[in-house]
């Protein structure tokens, strides 16, 4: 079934997540994110931001409630189905890039396609296109250790977009970058969203949220305390 374009890309209903005896990381969270939206999730440490991101990525399961992404009940997926879901529908960008140091930039970017079994030529063309578009094509044959932080994050974004996922998840994408590199990444994400890419962005960086997000929510103790379209709390 192809999800309708009018349906939200993300639909969280009554989602709760508790860890053993601790307090709820998320409590009865309802959240809908439309296609093409860029959602910034703000909140202090321990507010449930990363838990939310993990649930959306299929890396964790809710204790209660439903997580639906692109029409798929993510909370019901098996380990293997979760992996396939991540391959095809989610791209992830991390604070510390999480590039594989022993692979070249090109090999890093190709990896999601190779895991998905994409034909070699098609994957190579897509990787070349992404590296060109993100301005790191000249580094294709070098290893990530030799790149600047901003360049590494660009490579990470290229890798995340390799399989054309409908959803891009970004966890503090500028958290490990200097100001100039942070600005580069900010522009990049804004551009992607302008091209229609749905983004969920977890950050402490208000400037990033203001620049990139079309909507902002704030989590405190696992609950949404603010949900503003086009409004960023300073």
């Amino acid at each position, binding site marked *: 079934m192809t999800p309708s374009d009018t349906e939200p890309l993300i639909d969280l209903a009554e989602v709760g997540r508790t860890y053993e005896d601790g307090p709820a990381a998320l409590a009865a969270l309802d959240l809908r994110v439309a296609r093409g939206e860029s959602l910034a999730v703000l909140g202090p440490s321990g507010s449930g931001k990363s838990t939310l991101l*993990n649930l959306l990525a299929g890396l964790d399961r809710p204790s209660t409630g439903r997580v639906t992404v692109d029409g798929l009940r993510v909370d019901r997926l098996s*380990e293997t189905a979760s992996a396939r879901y*991540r391959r095809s529908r989610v791209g*992830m960008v991390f604070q510390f890039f999480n590039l594989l*140091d022993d692979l070249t930039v090109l090999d890093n970017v190709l990896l999601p396609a190779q895991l998905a079994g994409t034909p070699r030529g098609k994957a190579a063309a897509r990787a070349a296109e992404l590296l060109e578009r993100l301005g790191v094509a000249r580094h294709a044959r070098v290893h990530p250790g030799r790149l600047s932080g901003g360049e590494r994050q660009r490579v990470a974004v290229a890798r995340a977009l390799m399989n054309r996922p409908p959803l891009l998840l970004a966890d503090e994408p500028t958290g490990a970058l200097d100001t100039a590199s942070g600005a580069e990444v900010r522009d990049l994400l804004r551009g992607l969203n302008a091209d229609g890419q749905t983004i969920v962005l977890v950050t402490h960086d208000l400037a990033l949220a203001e620049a990139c997000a079309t909507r902002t929510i704030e989590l405190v103790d696992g609950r949404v305390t603010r949900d503003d379209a086009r409004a960023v709390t300073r």
Partner: protein
Amino acid sequence: MSARPSGPGGGALGRVVRAGVGRRRTQTAVMVLTTLLSVASAVLALGLLLASGAPFDRAFARQHGAHLTVRFDGAKVTPERLAATARATGVAAASGPFAVTALRLSADRSAPPGFAPPPLTVVGRASAGGPVDAVTLTEGRWATAPGEIVLERGSVPPASGPGTRLTGGSVALTVVGIAESVGESADAWVVPAQLTALAGGRPPALQMLYRLTAADGTAEVAAGRKAVTAAAPPGAVTGARSYLDVREAARQNTAAFVPFVTAFALLGLAMSVLVIGIVVSGAVGAATRRIGILKSLGFTPLQVGRAYVAQALIPGTVGAVLGAALGNALAVPLMAEVAEVYGTTEVLVPVWVDLVVPAGALALVAGTAFGPALRAARLPTATVLRIGPATGGGRGRAIRGLLGRLPLPRPVTLGLAGPFARPGRAASTAAAVTFGTLAVTLAVGLGSTLVAVKTDGDPDRGGDVTVHTITLAQGKPGDPTPRPGKPADVAAVAAAIAALPGTDSVYRTAHTQLEAAGLKGGAPLVAYEGDMAGSPHTMVSGRWFGATGEAVAASRFLTTTGVRVGDTVTLSEQGRTARVRIVGEVFDLGDGGMTLRTGAASVAALRARYQPADFAVTVTAGTDAVRYAQRLDAALSPLGAEAAVTEGSKSSVIRAMQALIVMLTLMLVAVACLGVLNTVVLDTRDRVRDLGVHKALGMTPRQTIAQVLTSVGALGLVSGLVGVPLGVALHGRVMPAMGRAVGTTIPPADIDVYGTPLLVLLATAGVVIATAGALLPAGWAARTATARALRAE
């Protein structure tokens, strides 16, 4: 809170050690298991090696066996004078005099022709103990009254034991015990008062048992004999035997074990050292960052080294103690087999092995932990803290890049590239797997050769159906002991066999003992008659006999007598002689490899007395051997003969060897698997972030397992390709050595047991060992929590 470094077991250092052991439970468990199996296999291997080395000597020493057993004429010397010989030059201790006589003991039923019991040396002795030849009771008790007899273990008639009634001359005797005299001082013992009756009124001979101050060689023993003879009246000594002769005979049995036990023992020891090294150094190497943290808290390099040694020694000690216990437990059944083969009462792992092996293993653990820990501790703290988990970084990037271009699924190419990231670790893992493959190859070769040897080394196992012309009849009601019946008429049996439909060919064999080639005691001879088409024989050289006057001989007969293929041997029986020409060396392990085989016509002139004959019948094609045997048995039963399908040979030596091979191989393979398991655990931990990234990018659990298994599978394949030829080469050296040790030549066909399909199969053993060792950690890798792994430092 400040962390004040102090000694292990207390204070900060103690807490660091305890935390290190408790935190890395998998690592700790692997280290316990590795030390356990390594120590167990080393204890077992060393114990067996020592048992193979000198079982006779140790058992002889335990019993204070007699270096010199001297028999005196009871009419020419008094017991008092004999007792004084204990003070002869060179005599350290003596037992006796004991009255002694030769006696044929038979069961209380009429023995059939061909079953005349051999004469036994019966000694009158009040107790089993004494300063010399303290014999060991293995069953029952010592004789305490006339009418009771204790039999030496090697002289117990079939189906006899405590309670069996025997007749010696006109005297009835009841067996009350079975005893073992390693020095073979007697075949049976009775109370001294009984001996006079057994001697038939004649003054019995007297036996003295001596231990000498020096008895290492023939010259020393001969000197002792001379001194004893000089101390006795002239002409009183009627015979003497040196323990060296007994030892030589005993060593024939143990000799076959030595080459392969040595090979396995050395393999086991080498592998134990290697795998302990891999596990311990790997564990310390993986803790570099933790070492940096400890240094930042104020630990000195030496304290860090001590902490990691202690951290490794805790699981190491647990493993070493349990391993020594396991090694001894496993040794019990194996040693029992070995003891049976060696003919000794007990073979145990020496206590010093139980102490030295675990101590050696712990020293190895400490040494391998201390070096890397000290090296890491001497690095600048800031550097160590920056290092973090080792992923291999830039090592082997070029080849890993090339592997990534292979037209294979990406998890496979990532796995193939894995070993190049940490070549040192990969090499040590490969070495462990190579040892494992080598052990498997050697074991399969030894097993195959032993099976072949068992089959080919028994020329008496001929035809599809074997007919015995004498049967064991059931005893009287209430007495379940079977007894031999009267031999059947050979001609009638032959006619019955010929008359039965389905008979293709048949030949008859009869065994006897003849004087041959000047051999002391003569040589066993098997005389053949009939169509020998179904005769199984494997020639070492020459050919099977054909014409009258030709014969074949077993290997040891040829080496003992110096006769060569082509030579003529004179056989004699009570003055009658026959000459046969040896036309071939037959592979024959029976009767100590001393048997001659020839046609009955070749030795007809000797008119020798044969044991009851056997027939070997080959059935026609399409005839069911089992049904044929049943029909033939029914036809022969009225004649007093019996027929049965020919069974394979049974050899306790080979059975014991096979049990040893299986046990030792399993242990070596288990140790190799542990080496792999440890490496994969370390790799998985080092690469946990990478695994998390892969999973975040969509790698499925199955792909993760495939990646991990491929990384070790490739190593396993290479190791297999190295280990198999090494195993084949070792087998090629061990088997001929085993043959030589027992005085025979193993036919090349029985050594060349590795066909191409088997070699290919064995080459996969490396892959099997590697993947078996990696299976568990691969599963753990697949289940790694991705979100946590992505945040791993």
